C-alpha cells in the first residue's frame, strides 16, 4: 500500500506531475520566444528566459491593490495552476499513462475551462476596469473556441467508438495503436485541423491573445498582478502551452507506439514540441492580433465548420 502511495506521490509531484510539466512548459515558452525571434531575423532571448522571468517575478514585491478582493485575487492563479497540473496526469503519453484510465474527454475539456475561469475571476477580483475588459474578452474567446473543440472531440470519439460510444482517452489511444493514427483517417483530417486552430486560441498566444493584449488593454486581467501571483499566471500559460499540444498528440497521433516507455515519453515530448511549433510559434511570427469579434467569427464560422464537416463525415460511416 505504501509503495503504491509513494508511486502515486512520485507521479503527482515529479514525473508527469508538478515538476516535469512546469519545467517542460517553461522550456517550451523559452524555445517558442527564441524561434519567433529567429523567424524575425533577430537573435532572441536565451532558451532559459522563462526561468529567469519566473524567478525574477518571485523576487519582486507582490502588491494586492486596495480595491481588490484579496482572497479571490490571490487564490485565482493557484487554482488555475493546480487544475492544469492535475490535467497532465490524465493525458496518456502513448503507452505510459498515469490515471488516464479514470477520466475522459469531457472531464479534460471542463478542466480546461478552470484556468480560463481562474484568469477571469482573478482579473475581475482586482477591481480594475482594464482587467474587466480583459476578462470579458477572455470569455468571448472561450465561447469562441469551445464549439470547435467539442465538435472535433465528438468526431474522434464517434470514429473511435464505432458501435459502442466512448469518451475515454485510454480507449482512443489504444484504438489508434491498433489501426493507425487518427490523423491519417481522412474523415478526421478536418477535425484535426480544427483542433490545431483551437490550440493557440486556448493558450492565448500572439495572434489570439485578445485577453492579454498588452498594447491595447495593458495586459488585460493581469494588470494589477505583480510578483508571485503574476509568476503563477505566466506559469499557467506555459503549462497550457504543453498541455494543449499534448492533448492533440494523444487524440490524433496516438498510434506512434515504440518499444519501451522512456522512448515513448521522449517521442511524445518531441511531437508536442513540433505541434506547438506549428500551431503557436509560426502564427506568432507571421500574424497580427485578431480583433475580438473577428476572432469569435473566425472560430464560430470557419473552424466550427471544419469540425462539423468531420463529424458529419464520421457519422455516415466513413
Amino acid at each position, binding site marked *: 500500500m505504501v509503495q503504491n502511495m509513494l508511486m502515486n506521490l512520485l507521479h503527482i509531484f515529479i514525473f508527469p506531475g508538478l515538476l516535469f510539466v512546469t519545467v517542460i512548459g517553461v522550456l517550451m515558452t523559452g524555445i517558442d520566444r527564441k*524561434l519567433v*525571434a529567429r*523567424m524575425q*531575423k*533577430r*537573435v532572441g532571448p536565451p532558451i532559459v528566459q522563462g526561468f529567469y522571468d519566473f524567478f525574477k517575478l518571485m523576487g519582486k514585491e507582490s502588491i494586492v491593490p486596495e480595491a481588490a478582493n484579496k482572497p479571490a485575487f490571490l487564490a485565482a492563479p493557484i487554482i488555475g495552476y493546480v487544475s492544469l497540473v492535475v490535467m497532465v496526469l490524465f493525458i496518456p503519453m502513448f503507452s505510459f499513462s498515469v490515471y488516464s484510465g479514470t477520466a475522459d474527454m469531457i472531464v479534460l475539456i471542463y478542466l480546461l475551462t478552470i484556468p480560463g475561469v481562474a484568469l477571469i475571476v482573478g482579473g475581475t477580483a482586482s477591481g480594475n476596469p482594464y482587467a474587466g475588459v480583459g476578462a470579458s474578452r477572455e470569455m468571448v474567446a472561450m465561447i469562441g473556441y469551445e464549439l470547435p473543440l467539442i465538435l472535433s472531440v465528438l468526431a474522434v470519439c464517434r470514429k473511435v467508438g464505432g458501435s459502442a460510444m466512448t469518451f475515454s482517452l485510454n480507449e482512443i489511444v489504444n484504438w489508434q495503436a491498433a489501426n493507425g493514427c487518427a490523423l491519417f483517417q481522412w474523415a478526421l483530417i478536418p477535425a484535426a485541423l480544427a483542433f490545431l486552430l483551437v490550440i493557440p486560441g486556448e493558450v492565448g498566444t500572439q495572434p489570439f491573445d485578445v485577453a492579454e493584449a498588452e498594447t491595447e488593454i495593458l495586459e488585460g486581467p493581469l494588470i494589477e498582478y505583480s510578483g508571485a501571483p503574476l509568476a503563477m499566471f505566466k506559469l499557467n500559460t506555459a503549462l497550457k502551452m504543453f498541455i494543449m499540444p499534448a492533448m492533440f498528440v494523444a487524440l490524433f497521433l496516438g498510434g506512434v507506439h515504440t518499444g519501451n516507455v522512456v522512448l515513448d515519453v521522449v517521442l511524445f515530448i518531441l511531437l508536442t514540441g513540433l505541434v506547438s511549433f506549428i500551431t503557436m510559434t*509560426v502564427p506568432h*511570427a*507571421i*500574424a497580427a492580433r485578431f480583433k475580438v469579434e473577428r476572432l469569435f467569427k473566425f472560430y464560430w464560422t470557419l473552424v466550427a465548420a471544419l469540425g462539423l464537416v468531420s463529424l458529419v463525415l464520421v457519422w455516415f460511416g466513413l
Partner: protein
Amino acid sequence: MRLPFTPIALKNLFSKPSTVLYPFKAEVQAPPNYRGKLTYDPTKCVNCGMCVKVCSPGAINRIYEDVEGGQHITYEFDMSSCTFCATCQDFCSTGAIKLSDNFHMAEEDHENLMVRGSYFKKSVPGKLVRGDDCVFCGLCEKACPEGCIKVDRPNKTWTWDEAECVRCEKCVQKCPKKCLEFKAAESGVEWSDACVYCTLCEKKCPVGAIKVDRANKTWEIDKEACIKCGTCVSVCPKKALTLND
C-alpha cells in the same frame, strides 16, 4: 487563406540573424559627421561668448574666477541638456567646439555628462590705442574675431568698437607695424578730440585743476589736484571727457 509571411519566416529561421551584437561582440561606428558628444579645446577659445548666446537649450555656461593678473574662465557644456544641434560649433569663430561621433552617453552619475574646459586669460587694460605709424593695411580688422575694428584704406580711417571688443589681443599680435596697443587708461579724467574747448569744465572744476586755451586749442589737467569728482565729465556738452577710476 493566404498566410502572408510564412515563406519569409521559415527562410529566416535557417538564415543568420541580422542583429548587430553591439555591446559585447561588435563595435559600432557612428555615421560620418554624426553629431555626438561635444569636445571643447580651451586653448582656441577666446571667450567671445557666442556659443552661450546661440545655445537654444542654454546648456553652456561660463564660470569666471578672478585670479591675480587675469581671469580663470571655465566653459561647462551640459550634455544632458544639449540638443546636439551643433549651432555652437558653427558660431564658434575659433573652432574650439567640435561635436565628435562618440555616442556612448549613458551614464549613471551626472558628472560624466558635463564637458568642461578652462583656461587662464590675462586681464587686458583699458582701451585699444593706435600708434601713428599705422599704414591702414587692414590686417588687424581681419584678425579681430568680433569684427569691432573698421579700417578704410582710401580715406585712412581706423575705428574701434569698444563695446564689441573682447580684448583677445589678436589685433595686437597681427599688426605688422606693432602700432596697436592696449593702454590702460590711467585713472582720472580723460580727454577726447570731441572737445570744442568751450572752457565750461574749467569753470565748473571745484579745485580748478583744468586749464583750457581756446585760441590754440590746448587742454591740460593737473593730475594731483584732480579729486575725480566727475563734475567736468557731466557738465561737458560734447561728452568729450570720461572718468577712468
